[in-house]
């Protein structure tokens, strides 16, 4: 099913979606766009390249409350925090970010114990993927082509959207998407030329080139294993790193978290919050021992986790080449260049 709407009427579509559940969509902030829960349909803004922070927060929010309690009261009286079961529409996700969800699914939803929060949020959400605008230049930081992802790749989306001049075309990909799309009464049926344009865009998306490096996941995994103890290499590539952790916070595939207790005035919340392997106390043990006190050890951990450990454990690289870490790094560390260097080392 292919439907369409004028982009200037996007707020009408937003209002319909808000009526059916909660809507997470890109909004313009001071320094760029980010996904946010929409309260005012006028705020939805599709005039963006990609968001600063990835949309992983839709399923793995920066803060996830587990339980609320009163200090000094018995443990059995604590109250569980439930995830709101209402439908969520995650609107305007770029193909590389859609791909990141399926990679995170392996960790949170399939391997060993299922994470109930991720799983529940994932089930409740309909994903509206959104092709990159092929008429705009590629951001130089992006390299998703190297990871087998294309600019107009509908895989993983429930509904896939393509911009056609002043219109937005919406195509249902999954049965879930089809059901939702049929109910969105502000949309009009697309014509034959729209069908043609949609198909052509998917094809043209393959020609929309990002930086490209031939990355065979088994080759890079083995290579990184081989140079693990090459301290000169890791010291060199991490020389400028400030250990600020920005790269991990914007990343769609970084999933490390802390579990902490937040208390005030006799009440408390146990919650998980995003954490980062770039921080010194991430691995500090009670004995005082810390296996990763040096910056190079922590950057090595991050690169290895994505390109080696994740391949060995889950059979896939934990990076989609969205370029966010490179764009947000205050000292211009570029993961693509590190991988390139590693392959040559």
């Amino acid at each position, binding site marked *: 099913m292919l439907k369409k709407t004028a982009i200037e009427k996007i707020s009408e579509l937003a209002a319909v979606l808000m009526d059916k559940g909660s809507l997470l969509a890109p909004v313009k902030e001071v320094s760029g766009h980010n996904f946010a829960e929409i309260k005012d349909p006028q705020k939805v803004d599709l005039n963006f390249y990609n968001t600063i922070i990835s949309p992983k927060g839709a399923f793995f929010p920066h803060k996830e409350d587990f339980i609320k309690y009163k200090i000094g009261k018995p443990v059995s009286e604590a109250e569980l925090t439930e995830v709101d079961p209402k439908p969520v529409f995650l609107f305007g996700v770029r193909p590389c970010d859609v791909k990141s969800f399926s990679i995170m699914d392996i960790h949170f939803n399939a391997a060993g114990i299922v994470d109930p929060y991720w799983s529940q949020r994932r089930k409740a959400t309909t994903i509206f993927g959104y092709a990159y605008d092929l008429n705009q230049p590629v951001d130089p930081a992006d390299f998703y082509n190297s990871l087998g992802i294309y600019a107009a790749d509908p895989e993983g989306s429930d509904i896939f959207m393509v911009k056609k001049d002043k219109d937005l075309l919406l195509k249902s990909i999954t049965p879930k998407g089809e059901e939702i799309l049929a109910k969105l009464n502000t949309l009009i049926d697309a014509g034959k030329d729209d069908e043609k344009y949609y198909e052509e865009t998917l094809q043209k998306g393959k020609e929309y080139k990002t930086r490209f490096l031939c990355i065979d996941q088994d080759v890079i995994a083995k290579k990184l294993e081989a140079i693990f103890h090459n301290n000169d290499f890791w010291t060199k590539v991490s020389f400028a790193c400030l250990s600020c952790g920005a790269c991990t916070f914007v990343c769609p595939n970084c999933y*490390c978290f802390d579990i902490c207790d937040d208390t005030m005035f006799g009440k408390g919340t146990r919650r998980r919050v995003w*954490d980062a392997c770039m921080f010194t106390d991430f691995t500090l043990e009670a004995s005082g021992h810390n296996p990763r006190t040096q910056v190079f050890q922590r950057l090595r951990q991050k690169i290895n986790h994505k390109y080696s450990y994740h391949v060995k454990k889950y059979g896939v690289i934990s990076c989609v080449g969205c370029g966010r870490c490179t764009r947000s790094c205050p000292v211009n560390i570029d993961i693509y260049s590190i991988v390139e260097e590693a392959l040559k080392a």
Partner: protein
Amino acid sequence: MSENNPYIPMPVQIAKIINEVDTNDIKTFRFTFLNKEDEEKFKYTPGQFGELSIYGKGESPIGIASSPTQSGYVEFTVQRAGTIVPGLVTAALHDMDEGAQIGLRGPMGNSWPIEFLEKKNIVVVGGGFAFTTLRSLINYMLHKDNRKRFGEITVVYGARTPGLLLYKDELAEWEKRDDIKTIITVDKGDETWKGRQGFVPAVCKETAPSPQNAVAVICGPPIMIKFTLPVFFELGFSKENILTSLEMRMKCGIGKCGRCNVGSQYVCKDGPVFSLAELDQLPRDF
């Protein structure tokens, strides 16, 4: 979502507190479950651990010190942390009295590989405070239903001083039994100490357990491990037959929070028990 949510602790009550050492900073806590079904869910094997959870403070991963053959309760031996990093949970726990309630998550991690150990001679080597899950293993093997499943059992256990030896009553009982060889040593004795003096590696060398059909299970401070391993290599133990339990900082305990990895392995889920042969496959990042 409350059903089987792995992040939500089950309520347990402190049934008994035993002060283990003369420095008063290591205590064994015996917990009973408030809900009968939780007790049934908490089926563990020696070598596993649990997350002790105190609301308002946090959680601490601690090895299970009791044996699954002891039913009705579960024990954890906990050192009060805080010399280098503030040990919020352990300090709060040490300040609690019998009857207090806390939370418990688990059991977590793999365990001592019981099937692999069956029909073999077992050499258990422990140093200081790292004896807790070894105690669990020893009590498991010594249980009347299990003893015949294992060959000879040799225990070498050392502490810095006599006052720092854990589980003193049990050690005395093991010394009386003839189906376990118990060798207790201290680095330095005091005027009341009549036992052996000497470091664990030296005592192991002297004891010289045979590598024939044997597995060594070794836990202790890094310095003890460092000097004990060469002794066992010299005795002829292969890396497949030397087991140890790793420590890393943990949070979730179920392989999700990404904190405790060594290479591609999460110590909380894929470990904490590894053979030296398995550790050789991992990068030196611990």
